[in-house]
């Protein structure tokens, strides 16, 4: 029996050439899931039958000489806040338990058209609110590298699925770091594209002006490949940038010679010393590869977290209002309509979701709007201006993804502020709408992976993947 390649690109070329069947690829991954996911709980739902049927269809296409897509036979795991036609989409919330969307998210359609095979829906912090995947109504996901630790969040299931080899690639969503932070904690690559690069149609909204879908992968090249497939204008999303998907895979091996890479001298503190050591090692590696390291300042960065925790909950309070028990999902009957709303939402939402709905409702209330939401929007603009000023002098910026390596399960569940601080380095790019990716770059405390984050200006994906590829090539050498 031929060995199944470990990367998406390897699988796609093996399947397309007929050297490995899509069915055998899928079976191998389903077997790994069956063996280990009981401990990890990366998946809310494994769609084994659908995946096998899809694989057989692709094998039939290949046997018949029909053309197949660039991801033919590649298993992919989908965060369970991406709508899948006829397949449960729960957002890891009781309020959506059992709901089957009547349509596919645009990214799901594009992946399918490219030949990728969905193996299931991955666990997340309820409605993507959290940094540890412990806020799931269906139980936490464990970090495959150390089951006593969290995988990060909110796309912890998708990160863990790739880290555990359940799928070579997966999709997550990133509102304040929900792809990059779990990628860092699980030792995989995670990409948040430019806001508007990837259609949000079919992504259950958390904070619409910040949400962006992106891939997890074991290699930077695979992440580029998936980004190419899912990116590009979608008329179903008004905020989708009206231009085609960029070519990115080539950038990964282009090198960084001549690039100017920013080192933030006023980076907010709080990172573990080992993480800062890895950051310095990253600059050494990039300089060795021919880049010029340029010191820059981003003075508004320390205000990003506060602005985020007004803007995101405000939008969430509105986005999640539709879960009212009237048309779909959970309904808890009560004496009258208002009581039904209350009972349904009290039973259907977890604590963190309720906390953010209340925060956001308050921030938008008459008399408080200007002081909270309005001011947060001003901070958001200033952060974007600071980035714009910095990008006059640099092509990309490198900072840590997470201040910490994977922490112990239960460590922060009762301390929301400590949990929120996990995203201090990832949130600013969401506010600016810029692309960013996390690339594994060696290990830190407890021999756990450290992720380096590459930031680039809007539509600067090529520069970002060049730097990401260079960091990967440097091997994260200690």
């Amino acid at each position: 029996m031929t060995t199944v390649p470990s990367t998406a690109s390897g699988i796609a070329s093996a399947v397309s050439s007929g050297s490995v069947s899509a069915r055998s690829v899928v079976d191998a991954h389903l077997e790994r899931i069956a063996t280990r996911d009981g401990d990890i709980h990366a998946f809310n739902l494994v769609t084994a039958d659908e995946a096998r049927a899809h694989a057989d269809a692709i094998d039939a296409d290949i046997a018949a000489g029909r053309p197949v897509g660039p991801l033919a036979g590649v298993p992919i795991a989908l965060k369970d806040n991406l709508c899948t036609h006829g397949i449960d989409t729960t957002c890891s919330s009781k309020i959506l338990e059992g709901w089957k969307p009547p349509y596919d998210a645009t990214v799901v359609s594009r992946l399918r058209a490219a030949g990728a095979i969905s193996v299931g829906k991955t666990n997340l912090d309820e409605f993507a609110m959290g940094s540890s995947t412990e806020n799931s109504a269906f139980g936490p996901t464990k970090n495959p590298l150390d089951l006593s630790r969290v995988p990060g969040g909110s796309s912890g299931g998708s990160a863990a699925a790739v880290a555990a080899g359940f799928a070579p690639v997966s999709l997550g969503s990133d509102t304040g770091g929900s792809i990059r932070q779990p990628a860092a904690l699980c030792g995989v690559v995670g990409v948040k594209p430019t806001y508007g690069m990837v259609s949000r149609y079919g992504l259950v909204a958390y904070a619409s002006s910040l949400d962006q879908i992106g891939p997890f992968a074991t290699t930077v090249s695979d992440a580029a490949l998936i980004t190419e497939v899912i990116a590009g204008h979608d008329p179903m999303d008004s905020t989708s940038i009206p231009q085609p998907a960029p070519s990115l895979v080539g950038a990964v091996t282009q090198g960084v010679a001549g690039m100017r890479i920013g080192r933030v001298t006023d980076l907010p503190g709080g990172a573990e010393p080992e993480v800062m050591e890895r950051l310095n090692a990253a600059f050494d590696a990039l300089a060795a590869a021919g880049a010029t390291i340029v010191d820059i300042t981003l003075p508004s960065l320390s205000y990003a977290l506060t602005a985020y925790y007004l803007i995101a909950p405000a939008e969430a309070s509105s986005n999640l209002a539709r879960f009212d028990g009237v048309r779909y999902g959970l309904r808890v009957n009560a004496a009258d309509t208002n009581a039904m709303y209350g009972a349904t939402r009290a039973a259907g939402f977890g604590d963190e979701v309720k906390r953010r709905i209340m925060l956001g409702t308050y921030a938008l209330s008459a008399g408080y709007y200007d002081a909270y939401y309005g001011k947060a929007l001003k901070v958001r603009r200033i952060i974007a201006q600071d980035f714009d000023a910095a990008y006059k002098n640099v092509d990309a910026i490198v900072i840590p993804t997470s201040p910490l390596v994977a922490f112990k399960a239960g460590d922060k569940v009762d301390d929301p502020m400590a949990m929120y601080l996990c995203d201090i380095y990832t949130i600013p790019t969401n506010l600016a709408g810029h692309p960013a990716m996390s690339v594994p770059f060696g290990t830190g405390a407890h021999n756990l992976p450290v992720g380096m984050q590459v930031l680039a200006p809007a539509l600067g994906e090529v520069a970002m993947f060049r730097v990401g590829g260079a960091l990967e090539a440097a091997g994260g050498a200690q």
Partner: protein
Amino acid sequence: MSDSTLSSIVATEDQLLPGGWEMIVGLEVHVELATRTKLFSGSPNRFGDEPNVNIDPVTLGLPGALPVLNKQAVELAMRIGLALNCRIQKCIFHRKNYFYPDQPKAYQISQYDLPLNADGFLALPSGTVVGIERAHLEEDTGKSTHVGGSTGRIHGSDYSLMDFNRAGVPLVEIVSRPDIRTSEQAKEYVAELRAILEAIGASDAKMEEGSMRCDANVSVHKIGTPFGTRCEIKNVNSIRALGRAIDYEARRQIDVLDSGGTIRQETRHWDDAEGRTHTLRTKEDADDYRYFPEPDLVTLDPSAEWIESVRQSLPPLPAARRAMLQELTGYDPQSEAVIVAVERGQHEYVKAIAEAGGDPVKALIYVTQAFAEAGAQPAVPPADIAALTILERDNKLSATQAKTVLAEIVANGGGDAVAIAAAKGFEAMDTTAVEAMVDEAIAADPDAWAKYCAGEEKAAGAIVGRVMKASKGKADGKIVSAIMQSRRGL
């Protein structure tokens, strides 16, 4: 709205209410746009279908669905703005958040501080100019039917049925300034607005079907004092009801104030059967809508070229149409026939009859009287009507006979007026024959003639009666009178 700086218009003496009270009225009119599809999705915008067939993930507010703005809706909204002399501006959408079962997303996508159309005016046929504060785009809600209970409202009902066909239908909300001072002006404003909306093809503007809905903000005060506290009147479903509701509400407020009470700012429900308003909710229990910019949509910034092309495509508005009929017929643009013809969109038909050689005045009268169906475009060839107007003008047919012939032409969708008149035995009587009959009648009843000549108009009846008898009713009464007057003057 209660801020008197918003309107500097003062009622005339005859517009004031008893006791020197002045009513201050502003209107908020919602119109459903006549688009093919909904404001943010591809589902049909169609009235009268089976419940819940014109729906899709966006309409139902399904998780993950996103709105995409309908270009045709924007164009129709721009037509409204241009017809109301508004400034069309760069604008954004906001979310208006509130829970209600017929609001699928629990927020309505609307416009808030930056509407598409701002600062216009509407000149009424009577000459009053009403300021337009804004005309903005928003989506309609679904339709609730509350079953059981006595009120037909959600409270106390056994269950509620939801039809989401209407959810997401594009609306334009046209907000007037508080420039209206009488219920007559309010009715005139809505009638003129309806005529404009129909003329520009923006909406069928049917209050009965709910494609045009009107809320009235009413307050009263005495001239020279600040505006009073206003109440918003909802559930006004016809122009007539609007006039009654405003008059009732002004009277109610005056009664409260005259008896030493104060007006609470509140929303009131018009009960057309009872002829009164009831409190619906007070300001204190009004929702906090938590408006914020809709992050799923981008800024709408119509280019100057786009605005200009929409402006160029506008047809003549009702005022211009009335002026055309005035020029054609000599009738006052405020005369009922002119207003009715324009409201029904029959002005072009009147013009076509005139162009086919018909008499313009008779054409206007025929069309407004014979084609009673509002808005009906007669299927009769204009030339057929033109021929009939000439027969009557030349006294070949009496007015009564012409009306009979017209009814037959309309019923048959056309016809030769001469042939129909002949078939009915309406022989053309020339004036000479009538003159001879008049002279014979005078000779036969000299007493009556003498009295008539002495100024006793009633005495004319005897002479006319003789002529009619002699002509077997075919003589035109008007012509007989004219001949008699001419004889008397000799």
